[in-house]
């Protein structure tokens, strides 16, 4: 929409700038999907949505539980006696039973034997609200948080838009599976210092979005030591904590605190949500969990701007206190995610697509470098447009996650049913076959990055095996001795 003169100057800069982040490529694919959504019978050629990290695998279990537990709803005959008290309840401490149930569930889902304190649970408008609240509490406009790349695109909006704070990347690379290193942390901190920007903390996502990997103890200890030494905060976004489906087991920052009494706990804060593990993004249940009493108090006051509906609190308090149910749900969710992940990654591998080895999350981090016409962001976006137009799959390009290496794509697998997944995998297969055929036909020149064309020195490698071709490419296999 054009900004016309009478309306434009009347609004704030915040209302008219791009801080909402919706101009990013992350959303373009969604627009393609919205205008041509796949449906197995009504639109079988439509775009399949694989850019949405939703967990639709266990909603049937919850639906069943709700049916069997009528009293959990204040609107049923069984539960309506609670209606008045609940509908009237707007205390920002939240329903006590809700806080207790969430605290218990947080501990259970991590499986580390950590007890979370209900008194530290602060509600927020989803994890989106939680991240923003912490940014408001911990930093002033102009100050910065360091975030390892690749990271969830909407952090740019959640942490920066209305708060005025900045995000500085901690560059992570595929050479060590994108792990966060001490030197990468130091380098990012230095860079901010040089730009005269005060760093207030580090924000990590564990398990990672988009990588799908959990942080190991060594990395967590490195992080905790780093922030202690610099006297800055550590925010751990653990919203995918319940989605760990294989080894290694989840280790959260709370475990490190338990094992390291020297760490200043008041620098540690966690954000959580029920949107990923339970698949309830519509219910807007976010949590700020801070080990800092002042932050808890401040965040609680700020939570007035995004409390969880008491109707929803009541329902979930009941559901999450049902120990037998949550045990079954967590186990079954794990099983279904693991199965989905296994099918997906193995079928992709059959077509020559490797994914970063992962043990969590609702997505895979695919390496499509071998399909790039050039190893640049433009090359990646060109490939991405081809994926949307030819494959009719909305996947998310790594550049939208600020990944420093072109060619990586996040593809979600838990938001579609088995049939749709099969269709998607077939499309991958066809696309890869066409791509290979095209490379054969064009003599492979197009696969080379442009930067090689200007080189004056010959590399000892044959033109068939430049480092950019996937080691599993049939081209490599054809020329390398068995």
């Amino acid at each position, binding site marked *: *929409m054009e*900004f016309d003169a009478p309306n434009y100057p009347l609004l704030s800069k915040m209302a*008219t700038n791009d801080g*909402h982040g919706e101009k990013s490529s992350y959303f373009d694919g969604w627009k393609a999907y919205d205008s041509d959504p796949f449906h197995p019978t009504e639109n079988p050629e439509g775009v399949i949505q694989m850019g949405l990290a939703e967990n639709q695998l266990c909603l049937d279990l919850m639906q069943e539980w709700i049916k069997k537990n009528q009293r959990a709803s204040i609107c049923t005959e069984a539960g*309506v006696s609670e209606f008045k008290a609940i509908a009237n309840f707007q205390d920002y401490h939240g329903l006590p039973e809700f806080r207790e149930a969430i605290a218990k569930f947080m501990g259970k889902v991590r499986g580390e034997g950590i007890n979370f304190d209900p008194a530290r649970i602060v509600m927020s408008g989803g994890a989106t609200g939680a991240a923003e609240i912490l940014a408001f509490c911990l930093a002033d406009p102009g100050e910065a948080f360091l975030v390892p790349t690749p990271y969830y695109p909407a952090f740019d909006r959640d942490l920066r838009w209305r708060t005025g704070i900045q995000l500085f990347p901690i560059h992570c690379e595929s050479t060590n599976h994108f792990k966060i290193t001490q030197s990468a942390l130091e380098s990012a901190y230095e860079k901010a210092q040089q730009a005269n920007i005060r760093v207030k903390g580090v924000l990590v996502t564990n398990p990672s979005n988009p990588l799908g990997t959990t942080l190991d103890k060594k990395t967590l200890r490195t992080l905790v030591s780093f922030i202690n030494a610099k006297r800055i905060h550590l925010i751990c976004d653990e919203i995918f904590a319940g989605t760990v489906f294989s080894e290694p087991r989840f280790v959260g920052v709370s475990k490190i605190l338990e094992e390291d009494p020297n760490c200043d706990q008041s620098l540690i804060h966690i954000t959580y949500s029920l949107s990923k593990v339970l698949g309830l993004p*519509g219910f*807007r249940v976010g949590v700020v969990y801070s080990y800092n009493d002042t932050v808890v108090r401040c965040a609680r006051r700020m939570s*007035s*701007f995004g409390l969880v*509906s008491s109707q929803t609190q009541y329902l979930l308090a009941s559901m999450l206190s049902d120990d037998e149910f949550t045990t079954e749900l967590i186990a079954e969710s794990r099983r279904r995610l693991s199965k989905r992940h296994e099918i997906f990654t193995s079928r992709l591998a059959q077509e020559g697509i490797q994914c970063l080895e992962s043990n969590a999350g609702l997505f895979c981090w695919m390496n499509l470098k071998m399909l790039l016409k050039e190893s640049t962001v433009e090359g990646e976006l060109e490939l991405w447009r081809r994926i949307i137009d030819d494959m009719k799959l909305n996947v998310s390009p790594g550049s939208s996650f600020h990944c420093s290496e072109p060619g990586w794509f996040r593809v979600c697998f838990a938001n579609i049913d088995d049939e749709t997944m099969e269709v998607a995998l077939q499309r991958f297969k066809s696309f890869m076959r066409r791509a290979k055929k095209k490379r054969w036909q064009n003599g492979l020149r197009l696969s080379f990055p442009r930067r090689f064309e200007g080189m004056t020195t010959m590399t000892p490698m044959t033109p068939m095996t430049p480092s950019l071709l996937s080691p599993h490419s049939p081209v490599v296999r054809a020329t390398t001795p068995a």
Partner: protein
Amino acid sequence: MHKKLLSRKAACNSHGQDSSYFLGWQAYEKNPYDRITNPTGIIQMGLAENQLSFDLIESWLKSHPDPAGFIRDGASIFRELALFQDYHGLPAFKKALANYMGYLRGNKVRFEPSNLVLTAGATSANETLMFCLAEPGEAFLLPTPYYPGFDRDLKWRTGVEIVPIHCSSSNGFQITKAALEQAYQQAEKCKLRVKGVLTTNPSNPLGTTTTRRELDTLINFVVAKDIHLISDEIYSGTTFDSPRFISVAEAMIGRDDVSHRVHIVYSLSKDLGLPGFRVGAIYSGNDYVVAAATKMSSFGLISSHTQYLLSVLLSDKDFTRKYTEENKKRLKERHKLLAEGLREAGVSCLKSNAGLYCWVDMRHLLKSKTFEGEMELWKKIVFEVGLNISPGSSCHCVEPGWFRVCFANMSVDTLNVAMQRLKTFIDTGLSSHDSGRRVRWPAREKANWLLRLSSSDRKCER
């Protein structure tokens, strides 16, 4: 921990919770009245909640089991709702809400669902509008007395300033052109750029609906100054007596030049008594405001679970009509009870026709006609009489001696007990001399309170 490790917002007290408005609540929480277990406890009369008509909703629920079971047209929609996080909101809910808002305005105006933005309560709606319409350091003009929570909602995280438009009892606290101009000039003196005016209609704490004349004055003023007008109409459904409620939307009819600068805030917390559900909305004729506010609503969406329930409830026009009429009837009766009880105690209140409270005149009970005098009287009423009412100074009233007293959040019995206590207090003349029994006024709280009184003068020294 060093305060400077946190943000300035975390370390300051702009959250407003040190104000007397909240201190009375704290006193209540430590010693709450209960007819049986604590009959000498403090009665909560500082909470503008509508608890009078829950039974109507409860009986509707009993005859409409589908929303409870996440059923629509016989099929389960649990999955659909669980996944629904579109910030455009559930279409059926927005349509029902828009229709309900139209109904409350006598269907003289029509609200388009596409111009409605859903937010987590009016608290979030007001803050979002500040983020959209003003830069940090800019100002909105608000007529006094006003809802104390605005100090937090409009200013805390946004950095926006509030400059008061002083209204006085000489004309029933109505907003005049002169008062608007004076406030605007005061802002200019303080080098604050004014971005708009925010009024509450029906007013909190006055309980009066804004007159057509005032609405025209407001609209003309914002047009002349090229600024915004926000009309917080969250009490629109509580108008129980004449004159009828006139929304700013109605006053805009026939004026093509204003829809891009006028915005309405609504909520179901007061009219339907559902504050726990966190249902707020912004209505704006300015597409850019709608677009920006919609994106910002990501930070506080309404639970889809709740949207669905209310979409069914509010679409039942038969129910909304019966509910609204019965609710108004009950509010009118309760208001009458309070006003009469006060009269018997020799206390009058501002003539009002809406809201969940009365604006009570206790000026004649002050030992000294100052805010210190008001505070002293308030202390006595909270700690000796045992009624938590809200002192006018917490609402930024310019005249000491006014108090807001709520009537819709308790039973008739409790209201009678409250009135009896007040009558006894006044009849025995305790208000006019020292009872000899000192109530401990915590030093820190008193210091904060006095700081607050003087800080509103210091604002201009920025």
